[in-house]
């Protein structure tokens, strides 16, 4: 099965051949590298931009205004901060012009820890991004969702921020992307660029790829359970699923929700689950102060207080200025498997 980087590449191929994507660009996005995470290898509309993040976001806005359909990449989300006012502007262009203009543009950027990226290649962007109205924000945790969310993003009339969890980019999926070959080796031969000279290389895209779309705003019920709900997305989602499996052996039944879309988000799914279990843990790895999960905790308290058997909890990254390179430092800074299992066990055992 494809890994997430391959899934993204296949979705972009589909989007530039069928959905009108005109420009896939950013630093090292075009030939010869095809992206530092290989997500854009072999695509036909790719090009390398100057090393200028403001220029990248600005150009994407201009291309969208001009009638193109851009997919821009910021090499690491840590470097998107000097474009924050442009992101705000992209988010308010439709509103401030009273509906006169809209910007069909996608920005992709890798986020989070997990590749030992040290202080400037490990940041998360979910809280910042969900603070900017006018954008849709998504973050897949599986290759199939990565494919389907990107297809949806490339059909949107609005700006979409597509957050790629770095730690999962090389993880193979368990589900097949409609149209991908059955076996990984075949897929790799077809679409992975060779090392060394690539000047003569051309990918052979699987012809049967489909417009499989994951709707923006719909979460996924990853595992049913009735004692406690855990809501997550991105890198921490598979950790939550594994924690749920571990706890099942202990007789604790955990319902796992993959939010997939951070804005708009699937409140109906969370609400139904929390009303059923009475207990909820939100997990992500952004820093915990003014965290997106805090918003979800607040909404849970506001709307579901009388259904709760325990206080809603948030497990997030530590509020420290960066993620240190040493293994011990990274592990201590963002939620790990064990932290999640422990937090869920404690929540399940909490009595009113």
């Amino acid at each position, binding site marked *: 099965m494809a890994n997430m980087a391959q899934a993204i590449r296949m979705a972009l191929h589909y989007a530039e051949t069928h959905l009108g994507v005109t420009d896939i660009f950013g630093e090292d996005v075009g030939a010869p590298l095809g992206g530092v995470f290989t997500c854009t290898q072999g695509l036909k509309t790719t090009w390398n931009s*100057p090393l200028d993040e403001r220029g990248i976001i600005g150009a994407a806005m201009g291309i969208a*205004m001009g009638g*193109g359909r851009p997919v821009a990449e910021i090499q690491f989300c840590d470097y998107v901060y000097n474009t924050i006012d442009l992101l705000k502007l992209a988010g308010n262009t439709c509103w401030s012009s009273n509906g006169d203009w809209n910007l069909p543009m996608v920005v992709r950027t890798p986020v989070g820890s997990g590749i030992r990226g040290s202080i400037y290649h490990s940041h998360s962007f979910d809280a910042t991004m969900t603070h900017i109205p006018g954008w849709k924000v998504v973050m897949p945790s599986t290759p199939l969702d990565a494919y389907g969310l990107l297809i949806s993003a490339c059909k949107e009339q609005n700006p979409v921020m597509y957050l790629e969890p770095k730690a999962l980019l090389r993880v193979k999926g368990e589900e097949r992307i409609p149209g991908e070959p059955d076996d990984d080796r075949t897929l790799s031969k077809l679409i992975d660029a060779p090392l060394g000279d690539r000047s003569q290389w051309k990918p052979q895209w699987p012809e049967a790829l489909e417009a499989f779309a994951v709707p923006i705003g719909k979460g996924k019920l990853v595992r049913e359970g009735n004692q406690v709900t855990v809501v997550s997305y991105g890198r921490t989602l598979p950790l939550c699923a594994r924690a749920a499996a571990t706890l099942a052996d202990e007789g604790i039944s955990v319902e796992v929700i993959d939010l997939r879309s951070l804005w708009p988000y699937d409140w109906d799914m969370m609400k139904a689950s929390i009303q059923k279990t009475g207990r909820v843990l939100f997990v992500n790895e952004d820093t915990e102060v003014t965290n997106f999960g805090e918003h979800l905790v607040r909404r849970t308290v506001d709307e579901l207080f009388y259904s709760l058997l325990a206080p809603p909890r948030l497990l997030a990254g530590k509020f420290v200025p960066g993620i240190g390179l040493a293994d011990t430092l990274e592990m201590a800074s963002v939620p790990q498997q064990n932290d999640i299992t422990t937090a869920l066990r404690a929540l399940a055992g909490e009595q009113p």
Partner: protein
Amino acid sequence: MSRPRLIKESSAPLPLDRELLVRIHDLMVKTRVLEERLIQMYKQGHGYFWIGGPGEEAFNVPLGLLMKKGQGPEYDFLHAHYRQSGTLLALGEEPIGALRQMKNTASDPYSGGRNFAGHFSLRKYNVAPVSSPIEVQYSIAPGTAMVQKRVGGDGITIVTGGDAGTAEGDFATCLVWSSRPANPLPVLIIVTNNKWGISTSAEGQHGEPRVSERGKAFNIRSKTINGNDPVEAYLELKEAMEYVRKERKPFLLEANVSRLYGHSSASGANYVTDEVDCLKDFEKRLEQDGVLTRQQMDDLRNRYTEDMAAAARIARDEPLPEPESIWKHIFAEDK
């Protein structure tokens, strides 16, 4: 580089058709009267903030007249700043739109009561929404130019902003992105230099003798012109636009202009007597050359003054947007 213009000698006849001179003058007067009305509305409490372009009519009006007007990449794009009412009127907009924006009525055609005066947005003529953060338009402009270059035809992208704002990285972004040897872009990069950034003089802001010289390092053709002379502005803009249209390469044009009413209402919005008034100067020449009489010009101004007062009364009585309308147009599906 182009030849020096003879028009600077005030004895030489004006080198534009009479009809065009009269049209430029008409639009300059209309713009000035509109801006004066906007300032008055602000001072009477019919608006919260004023910023606009009195003093820049001589440059802005020719710019609007020369634009290839329409929607989509075959036509010119304008990424403007907040001093461009003259350009909008020259494109054919009626002044009441600007008055409605000042009064932030629901009928404000540019933002539905959401944005400041002078913050135009007009998709039907490729006028990108004017944003309050200065200079960001310079980062966006290369994008529309890229599409235009790809689509073919002769549509160009025009971006304007102030001299102080060239300190922002966006200005460098525009120079870099539009002049890459592998992909030069059809962008007319304009800086209107009024020698001020709010209260900080040019001497305290930037050290280059001419902003246009910054184009040199990028191999961008560039020029500084007198933006207070509508005839020079018209001819220079025409030449620069023709170059960008045909060569599909950038051009950096610096226009020296006046700031006749200070920066904005934040600095009082009162007439500044020691700046060149482009309208007064132009009228002197029109009279000298027998293009228009003083009487004709006074009549025109009076007529516009009355029209503007009537339009302001209409705008004043129109309703504000409904509170629930804050939820409209966050996303495009809501259209």
